[in-house]
């Protein structure tokens, strides 16, 4: 069988990769990072001109299925890694057929959870990761996606104004349904709970988890976070006709959670004395969409919230509440945001994304002002931040890593060398 590369935009450089060699034996020259940890499948990060891709060696049928699943998730706007292609028809130098390879683009500035724990973290970081994962799971469930293998290791995290935004990495077990049953959702949540507990216990066993964090308590919190968010996004509420303000109130609450309401049903009882409302279609990205519309900046939801707050402050301080919002936004972008993010010297741009730098500068301003007991001009703040804070941070543009060892039950007769 001839080598067959399926990709939306194939990069000719793909042809130069050593496809006739099992992925495990690829020469270091092709790799962007040395493999770390263990994985159910062999996964490697590979250098292509101008980008890094993740290559996963997997059964051809599963490779095509997961590629299509990731494409579908992308199409419906779900946060997941970007599928890049499938390489099929690989033949080893000895003529033996080799498994297919699924290629995904490396998500810049994303962090595997183990990388986050290996840095000095605030004690509530584990909780923030769980919160981000709960939001991701709710979003996927709203879209009818049953994950089947929810875990921290199947998720990548991007910094999001002090919190995290979660992205799905592994869709191998996933299924798309018109609508998920309660049992399917509950099952996913239960899988998440057990996997997270296992992953955190593993970090604890490896001495990587802060003493104060209790794996079981943290893992159980995904259940509460998930359920309360699901209830808020989909639950119906009933109130007297006199309380119509509660319709607006519900929409406002959903917006604050970062969701837009695309469809809301309102019904009254027979007598017309009570009203029942229930959101039918909600869409994540309330703040990031608004920021995108106003400034063209494409950032995470909490970053967008932070930037929009700063934009509002700018508008108030300039006394321009009556001006066209997009005009003010344009001025904020050129006078405030860009001057801050452009001051970052080139050698420090791999530390954090621009929007996260901006968020940190705002935080830094608050700390400096509080310490000084007065407002500190932004220029001074930036200078201090660039001198004393940013250089000490690790480069996060391309943190690569494959982190857990997981394996499928049916392979249990497969003999492989120990220690892989």
């Amino acid at each position, binding site marked *: 069988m001839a080598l067959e590369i399926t990709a939306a935009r194939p990069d000719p450089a793909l042809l130069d990769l050593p496809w006739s060699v099992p992925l495990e034996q690829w020469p270091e020259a092709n790799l962007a990072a040395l493999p770390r940890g263990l994985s159910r499948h062999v996964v490697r990060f590979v250098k292509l001109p101008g980008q890094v891709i993740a290559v996963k060696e997997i059964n051809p049928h599963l490779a095509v299925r997961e590629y299509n699943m990731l494409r579908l998730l992308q199409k419906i706007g779900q946060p997941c890694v970007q599928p890049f292609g499938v390489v099929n028809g690989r033949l080893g130098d000895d003529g033996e057929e080799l498994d297919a390879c699924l290629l995904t683009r490396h998500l810049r500035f994303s962090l595997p959870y183990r990388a986050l724990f290996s840095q000095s973290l605030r004690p509530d970081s584990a909780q923030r990761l769980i919160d981000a994962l709960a939001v991701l799971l709710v979003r996927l469930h709203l879209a009818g996606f049953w994950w089947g293998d929810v875990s921290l290791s199947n998720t990548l995290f991007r910094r999001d104004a002090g919190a995290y935004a979660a992205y799905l990495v592994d869709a191998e077990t996933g299924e798309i349904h018109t609508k998920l049953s309660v049992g399917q959702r509950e099952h996913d949540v239960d899988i998440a709970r057990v996997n997270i507990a296992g992953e955190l216990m593993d970090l604890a*066993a490896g001495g990587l988890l802060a003493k104060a964090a209790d794996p079981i308590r943290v893992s159980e919190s995904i259940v509460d976070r998930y359920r309360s968010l699901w209830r808020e996004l989909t639950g119906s509420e009933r109130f007297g006709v006199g309380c119509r303000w509660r319709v607006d109130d519900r929409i406002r609450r959903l917006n604050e959670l970062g969701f837009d309401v695309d469809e809301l049903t309102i019904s009254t009882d027979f007598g017309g004395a009570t009203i029942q409302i229930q959101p039918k279609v909600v869409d994540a990205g309330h703040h990031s969409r608004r920021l995108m519309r106003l400034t063209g900046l494409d950032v995470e939801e909490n970053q967008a919230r932070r930037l929009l707050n700063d934009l509002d402050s700018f508008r108030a301080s300039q006394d321009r509440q009556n001006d066209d919002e997009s005009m003010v936004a344009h001025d904020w972008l050129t006078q405030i945001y860009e001057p801050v993010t452009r001051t970052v010297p080139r050698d420090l741009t791999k530390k954090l994304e621009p929007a996260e730098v901006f968020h940190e500068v705002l935080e830094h301003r608050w700390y400096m002002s509080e310490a000084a007991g007065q407002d500190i001009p932004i220029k001074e703040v930036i200078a201090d931040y660039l001198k004393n804070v940013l250089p000490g941070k690790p480069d996060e543009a391309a943190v690569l890593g494959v982190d857990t060892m997981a394996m499928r*039950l*049916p392979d*249990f007769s497969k003999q492989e060398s120990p220690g892989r």
Partner: protein
Amino acid sequence: MATVKFDNASRTYPGNDTPSVDRLTIDIADGEFLVLVGPSGCGKSTALRMLAGLEEVNVGDIWIGDRNVTDMSPKDRDVAMVFQNYALYPHMSVADNMGFALKIAGINKAEIAKRVADAAKILDLQDYLERKPKALSGGQRQRVAMGRAIVRNPQVFLMDEPLSNLDAKLRVQTRTQIASLQRRLGVTMVYVTHDQIEAMTMGDRVAVLKDGLLQQCDTPRRMYDHPDNVFVAGFIGSPAMNLFDVPVVDGGVKFGSIVHPIERSLLTGVGKEVTLGVRPEDLVIKMEGDGLPVTVEVVEELGADAYIYGSTTETAGKIKPIIVRVDGRTPPAKGTVVHLSPKGDHVHLFNNETGLRIG
């Protein structure tokens, strides 16, 4: 461990007119290995998911032991779904990898240690409990993953096509291991596959589904020897049973130039034709003489046996393919015409309108 009962259980997906699983009734005994099998879209996975709690049951009930679990959430049903991926954690010992889910469930240390030790014994992992997964072979790691499910002492194990992504050789090996593990554990198992060979080799009983309807639920032997309808007759067995319509005549049914005797009482009330089924190994082959003339088109030699693939036109005027198993040492040559007759009473008759078995 427990019995499982599907009691008239149906599942209709929103927007569908017909149920994907239609009034399914099966009683599964404690410790039984039941296989749900059928072609794609027959409802076998849906049935398993109804039992797991992943699909709503619209009509009817599902029981595990004496508990009606129809409206229970998956985690309260005490079933282990082994079709999910299991992770092994590199910093944790084999014992911790097997037992950590019990810790989450709040089970005390002594009990966890006991259950882990018991499972390790069954899985032949006693000597490895203190090691890290990295020090194990691939096969041992997989057994650790299996151990994670076993220590929970679930009432029922569920598996959904666990072998579908393995190559043929590995599939045969692994299915033997799963079957022997189930026997050693004595646990009730419900297993879904589309592969009838897998179903027949693994199950204590096999339930064949088609279009959401249970066709037959029997032991593999009974299923093979006594299929209840034409669908089961054609689905179970490889190569498949030869099935063709034959005229009903005085004293029996016509089989080429001979009359195959059938008890008169069986044929009263049937039409002019019935569907006759005969397995490839249940045909006697003669080079000359009476019977059903068949032109040999392909001879597949397998050593001890050979399969003859041919066709006949003497089945209600239609060309029908016929497969016969013959002695591998003396197969007839391609192109010859052979004459077939059924061996003894190894003939299955079906009503050619309803498809149901006669007799």
